[in-house]
């Protein structure tokens, strides 16, 4: 059972022949985009978070064929053309929000969507926590992650 999927991944148009049984996570990793991680595989941890049409989804629970006609963004695509970090990625570095790093690609994508949706709005730390409730991190205790997002929202977008 195979199907052709045409979608953009990080701005690049791809036409792929995928197994309908494959998750979007499996499709992306097979394309060499191994930044996106699998933790639980059942929607609990958010390590596999990618953006589909700018909305965070758990790619482990999302069929690859559903990406047809849509725009997918992964952590690799957040790098600037010159190889620099995105503002969200830089804020994570500055805030010390990365320890083992396994949760980080998923969290970066949740934060990216959150910052894009809330640019210019007043947001509390509680709002940031709620907006990241679908991502687990076993190392940092979340404080530094909330700091990073708060900093991004305070600095002007590029």
């Amino acid at each position, binding site marked *: 059972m195979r199907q052709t999927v045409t979608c953009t991944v990080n701005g690049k148009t791809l036409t792929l022949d995928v197994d309908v*049984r494959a998750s979007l996570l499996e499709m992306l990793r097979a394309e060499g985009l191994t930044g996106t991680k699998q933790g639980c595989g059942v929607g609990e941890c958010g390590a596999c*978070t990618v953006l589909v049409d700018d909305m965070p*989804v758990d790619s482990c*629970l999302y069929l690859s064929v559903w990406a047809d006609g849509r725009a997918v963004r992964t952590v690799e695509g957040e790098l600037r053309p010159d190889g620099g970090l995105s503002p969200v990625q830089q804020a994570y570095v500055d805030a010390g929000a990365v320890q083992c790093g396994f949760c980080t690609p998923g969290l970066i994508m949740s934060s990216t969507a959150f910052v894009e949706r809330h640019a210019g709005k007043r947001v509390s730390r509680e709002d940031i926590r709620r907006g990241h409730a679908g991502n687990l991190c076993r190392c940092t205790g979340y404080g530094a992650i909330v700091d990073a997002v708060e900093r991004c929202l305070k600095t002007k977008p590029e």
Partner: protein
Amino acid sequence: MFDIRKYRQAATAAEAVRLLVEDPAARCLAGGTDVLVRLRELHPGYDNLVDIHNVAELKPIVLLPDGTLRIGAGATFTDIMESPVVRECAPLLVEAAASVAGPQIRNVGTIGGNLCNGAVSADTAAPVLALNARLRLLGPGGERCLPAAEFHTGPGKVALHPGEVLLSVDIPKDDRQGWGGQYVKYAMREAMDIATIGCAAAVRLRDGRMEDVRLAFAVAAPTPVRCPAAEAAARGRSPDEAAFLAVRKAVVEDVKPRTSWRATAEFRLHIIRTLAGRVLAEAARRAEGARA
């Protein structure tokens, strides 16, 4: 890889019905947040799928000319939370949608999947009962409408006939206009947790008294339930402490909580009694501000 054995995509609800009739062993796949988890856990009975994920006609949320609020079965929790008409007409459904899981699941999981999955803990189940919603179903024989109270028939069981697809959740004007409502989910964590108890209430006032009262619970019995005894205890009374005390007493007759690893039956009953009074009181308070 998901262990899918047979997979077909439907472009319309009618095509989904045709595919389900053709193969009675098949089931719908909407957002997949229940189905794909079951597949991962290798449950039998989920490997033959009719994919309705992209059926556009199931997605809209609209106010019909007669004032009925129609929420497509394929509307996601995020769609519901962000819909201006649902915010205006059925805020308790917004509260229920916002209480589900985290953003990623809410962006994909649908109200149709939440109800059709039949879980007693489904967060939209109690609000749909309190709103007295009608479920519009399409089957091989055509369309029919079922009151929400007749939909859940047992744990994990719903009244879908073979080949039927849920089209929409309809809330007639008279069941939403002038009402105040609230949904409260009691869970151990504030996010990413299944309800220990879910409570929805809707109240309509007349001359300061609770003329119409609806109270519904999730996880309080083998299926989501309305509470006729508690409703009768409140009906016709002014929304004061004495009335809510009567509700807390009466609600015991309406529920049958059980013990699970999440909570004991005694603890659930305590939460049920507490929420029955508190959520009805808030619904009544909101009804004061509601436009008739």
